[in-house]
């Protein structure tokens, strides 16, 4: 039975263990955030403190409100957190290998969203969007974006970073910022000239009909979206997926989380179990020695950009599915937040990027959703609070949450 046992080991090591780790991160972060929110809800419910800033809106039972919103806040936080995590992987891998922050990564992410739009729109123009299996459409979008953005990242590395490899550290950084602006404007120009558009809305409502399987499970077709109009079939992406109890979520959220988990698990497998993945890790730890092993360092760097770019592209599509509209400027904030997530988790550390992404997503979701109940503050302050938490964490752990542990640095 050694073959069977080996297969078992393999599944355990490269599938179950990483998924288990992701689950632990999600559950623990969610539990801590929920506990804190409930605690704050209970403490600030009555204005005993006399601090104007912390006074809640009249007639609002904050604790009740937290309880009511908790499932939504968790789902919102986790789904955007996974998107941040997938983007953050691109930042962290490149940093691990080159000790260089690829600031153009946020725009590679944006281009991924644009590719998703292009694929969807072209399928729509060919009248294939509603007849093709929806999951196939999404898979196609993701794969096309991964291929395009992976190659784009490699080309950028060749043209804008590689010639500067020996230069002082700030120089490639400036180059990256320049590439970032360039990509934004190129996308803007191309879309303005070819389609005369700036907004690139995903035709989400036109994607397929729900597969039979969801007809069998009790799902709630949103028939009364607004008065006077009804879908024959609920759009596939709005299919409600039952979770625990009365709680449901929509197909988009499930697709985002599942795709992100597949990518993280896949990356984990690649980096830890394949020769090329180990080669990348070797290069990230010691370039000269890696070269002495016969490893082509430039090839590994190219590979790193390819993978990082592909992940960024995939994240762009997931983000597009989530927000329904892509513009050439959409990359900046998610990129900044994903970079923050990478730092929060410990830059250079793959597991850290995942943890950082989920944590930041949750922080953002909780703060934005609860600050409206404090009239003196408002939802506009959510970033300030989320980033204050980041600063606090970095004060106590300057290397990020997982930065010091002997985890795989890539």
């Amino acid at each position, binding site marked *: 039975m050694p073959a069977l046992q080996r297969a078992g080991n393999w599944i355990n090591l490269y599938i179950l263990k990483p998924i288990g780790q992701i689950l632990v991160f999600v559950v623990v972060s969610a539990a801590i955030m929920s506990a804190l929110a409930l605690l704050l809800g209970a403490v600030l419910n009555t204005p005993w403190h006399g601090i104007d800033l912390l006074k809640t809106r009249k007639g609002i039972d904050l604790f009740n409100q937290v309880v009511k919103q908790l499932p939504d806040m968790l789902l919102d936080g986790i789904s955007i957190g996974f998107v941040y995590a997938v983007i953050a992987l691109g930042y962290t891998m490149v940093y691990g290998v080159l000790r260089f922050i690829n600031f153009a990564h946020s725009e590679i992410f944006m281009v991924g969203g644009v590719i998703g739009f292009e694929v969807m729109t072209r399928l729509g123009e060919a009248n294939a969007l509603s007849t093709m299996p929806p999951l196939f459409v999404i898979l196609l979008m993701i794969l096309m974006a991964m291929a395009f953005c992976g190659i784009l990242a490699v080309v950028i590395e060749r043209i804008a970073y590689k010639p500067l490899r020996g230069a002082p550290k700030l120089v490639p950084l400036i180059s990256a910022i320049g590439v970032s602006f360039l990509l934004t404007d190129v996308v803007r120009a191309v879309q303005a000239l070819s389609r005369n558009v700036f*907004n690139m809305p995903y035709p989400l409502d036109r994607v397929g009909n729900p597969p039979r399987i969801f007809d069998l499970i009790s799902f709630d077709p949103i028939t009364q979206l607004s008065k006077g109009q009804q879908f024959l079939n609920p759009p596939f992406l709005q299919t409600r997926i039952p979770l625990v109890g009365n709680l449901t979520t929509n197909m988009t959220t499930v697709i985002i989380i599942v795709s992100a988990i597949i990518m993280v698990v896949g990356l984990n497998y690649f980096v830890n179990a394949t020769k090329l993945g180990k080669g990348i890790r070797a290069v990230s730890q010691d370039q000269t020695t890696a070269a002495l092993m016969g490893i082509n360092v430039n090839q590994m760097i190219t590979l790193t950009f390819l993978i990082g770019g592909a992940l960024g592209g995939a994240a762009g599509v997931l983000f597009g599915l989530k927000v329904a509209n892509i513009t050439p400027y959409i990359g900046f904030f998610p990129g900044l937040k994903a970079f923050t997530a990478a730092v929060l988790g410990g830059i250079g550390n793959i597991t850290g990027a995942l943890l950082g992404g989920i944590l930041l997503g949750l922080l953002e979701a909780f703060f934005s959703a609860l600050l409206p109940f404090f009239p003196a503050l408002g939802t506009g302050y959510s970033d300030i609070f989320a980033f204050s938490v980041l600063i606090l964490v970095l004060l106590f752990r300057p290397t990020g949450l997982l930065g010091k542990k002997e985890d795989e640095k890539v």
Partner: protein
Amino acid sequence: MKAAKYLALVIALALVGSFVTAPVASAQDAKVIKIASHSPLSGGQSLLGTAIRNGVELAIEQYKKPIEDMGFTVEFVPFDDQATPDVGVSNAQNIVNDPAILALVGHLNSGVAIPSSEVYNRADLAMVSPANTNVNVTDRGYPTVNRVCGRDDAQGAAGAQYAVEKLGSKKVYVLHDKTAYGEGVATFFAQAMEAAGVEVLGFEGTTEAANFDAIITPIAALEPDLIYFGGIYNQAAVFFKQARDKGIKANFMGPDGMDGSDLAKIAGEAVVGLVYTSAAGPASVYPAAEKFVEDYKAKFTINPEAYAAEGYASTQIVLAAIEKVLSENGGAMPTRADVAKAIRATTDFDTVIGKISFDANGDPKVATYYILQVKNADPAKWGENELVSSVTAPSPLTAKEMMEGGMEATPEATKSN
């Protein structure tokens, strides 16, 4: 590697070259009169900004003849403010430095118009706004600043009146985009709603452009029957789309910033049924607009979006004023101050959007506020949005005069459903 470096160099040189060869104001030819348009021609709001630009261009083309007969060439110079105050102000500096520019039609965004018009006013350059509804645009009392559209205090009130009377709203949640325009009109709306006894569950500003999840969550929990978004369609559409997707069933409402077909393009079915107020009516309400729509389509091969007609009307006023100054001063190059004075003096002037008279602050003495409802998710059918109600109201100065004159000053609903 070498090749890459040379490529970068070539690109850099090309960029520099394009700046150097950009049109430079020619000051020596005194026989040229220039009219500028200033609106976002790039970015998320370029749909409406371009409509303004096109309106101005079309009007100049059609009405420049009398001025050209007096020995002047009329040139059109469009500027792109990118819907950004900084860009608007820096363009404004360039505009006032070109002495041939005698008047300007713009902007789309009040947040851009207010700081930019400070620059124009210092240089006596008259601005006629096709779209800026924020009260502070004219309430500063500048002799150079005018508008052909209505005001947000009246627009917010008109929206609130409709929400209470026709939609039966009891609980409303108000969002805005943190711009002078969006926050301004949202404030007036919320005040009017509160005055009518409606519970305002929340009043939040956000610059978020993509992921509204966390903003929607508390709204879903508070269960309002109406959500009002004081802002512009490109941001609002994404919000409305995501709110519907999250199962929110409230009615949606917004100010004239919703009036762009991209709203339907982005949000699709989610905004069918959305009600928006507008200080600019659909072309169908203006009898004179029929020919304008035809000419516009012929020249630009697209439908006129909101504010195209207002841009056209603003230019009609500007050109008529210049013509008047020229005929009074015997054909000498008019001064900006004279042009500004002539524009302010506009009384009962026939434009494509009806008769316009300016009050002492540059507001139209009487403005009509339209309430429209989105009927179709297809952006190509944006023009078929239904006019469900309209309200005509005098400007504050006019109202005051009427009060002093002992006349009835309450806004009067002229048409309903």
